[in-house]
């Protein structure tokens, strides 16, 4: 491959000038603590919103997203259990 053109070398140099401090910053304990808090805060906010919409839908006797999610989790657990039992039967055969 031929030598890189001037414009590409400039882009790469600029990217590294920005990228290196960014990469250093995303490896600090401060960043990890902040992102952990942000993830928890986002999840908490989503739960509050879901809780409000759930109550509103239930007042109208309608199923909420959380109800569907719970059913899906129960169905998944049942499917896994059936799978395990099928495997045990197959092993016996």
């Amino acid at each position, binding site marked *: 491959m031929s030598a890189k053109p001037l414009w590409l070398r400039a882009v790469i140099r600029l990217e*590294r000038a920005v*990228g290196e401090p960014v*990469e250093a910053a*995303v*490896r600090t304990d401060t960043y990890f603590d902040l992102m952990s808090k942000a993830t*928890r805060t986002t999840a908490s906010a989503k739960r509050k919103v879901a809780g409000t919409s759930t109550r509103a839908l239930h007042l109208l006797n309608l199923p909420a997203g959380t109800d569907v999610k719970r059913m899906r989790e129960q169905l998944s657990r049942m499917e896994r259990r059936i799978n395990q039992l099928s495997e045990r039967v197959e092993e016996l055969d």
Partner: protein
Amino acid sequence: MPPTLNPIDLVSRINRDVERSLLRARNGVRYVRGTHAPQVGATPKEVVWKRGKAELWRYRNDAVRFGPPVLIVHSLVSRSYILDLRPGNSLIEYLTNAGLDVFLLDWGVADELDADNDLARYVDFYIPRAVAAVKRESGADEITLVGYCLGGVLTALYAAGYEAAPVRNLILMATPIDFDQMGAMVAFLREGRLNAEELVDDTGNVPADVLYSGFYMQAPTTEIAQKATLLDNLWNDEFVEGFQAMGQWSRDHVPFPGALFRELVEELVRKNVLMTGAIRVGERKIELANARGNVLNAMAERDNVVPPAAVEPVMNLIGDPARREELRLPGGHVTFGTGRSAVKHTMPRLTGWIIEHSDELPAAKES
């Protein structure tokens, strides 16, 4: 090369630049539209065993010259076609062309049915059955077992956990042992930050985009330089195909089974239990020193995902000390297995080691 005033050279350069401009335009349109995506994982293979999402693939080889067969166990974090990315850039193809009988255990894409899969499920259920299938299909009594990244942890535990494990050679590629050295990859999961449960979704698994974010944030600005390099090489069909293939793989993450994730966070990340030399898997304790076979610890010198410091303890912990060897290779976590550096260094050296520790078969056999 300095510009020349020779008319013939000038005409030739103009022709080349015009041709390249046309190729750039064509490839640019294809890239933006997402058409002409390269085929990945193209080395011919067949499924010889299957259980749930796990599939054992045997790569077609009409000239197997060495035994025992090679079984590669890939990580659960990414798609296995990174080891068979494109013709001419494929560890699988390289091993097959060298006369080895190659199998790969692919884990598929986890869904809610895989959420309860824990360490014991992989070490005591899937891998022993895959090994039995390899022996059955190949007629061999032993195997060369290769594990990449988390696949290396699983294969090491299998080789150590079974007295009768038919492992002649155990190759661990970029396999993390000391999780205190894993740095940013696991920093969010340390005590006092996120718990495993907080990253698991309603399917019971860790979503693919959570894993993708984890890798992306290691180097968030490199995509700019990569796209600029692509723009400069847009006229080069081979470069564009390679770029697309690699880009496809790096975005193609899969969900991670929740039960295994919880176990890895608690035991490996927080307790760093592998460094004690033993780990509980299911109902029993596995001593890493009991791993069967010759052990080759292969690591990438510029691996930012699984740094060499996290991999080096293999030399003190896994298998018989008299049968351990270390292999340091240029490249990063992914580029030491695929790409120009891998083709030049990793593939020949790994293949050479395997052949050195294999037997030449009496005659080339049909497989």
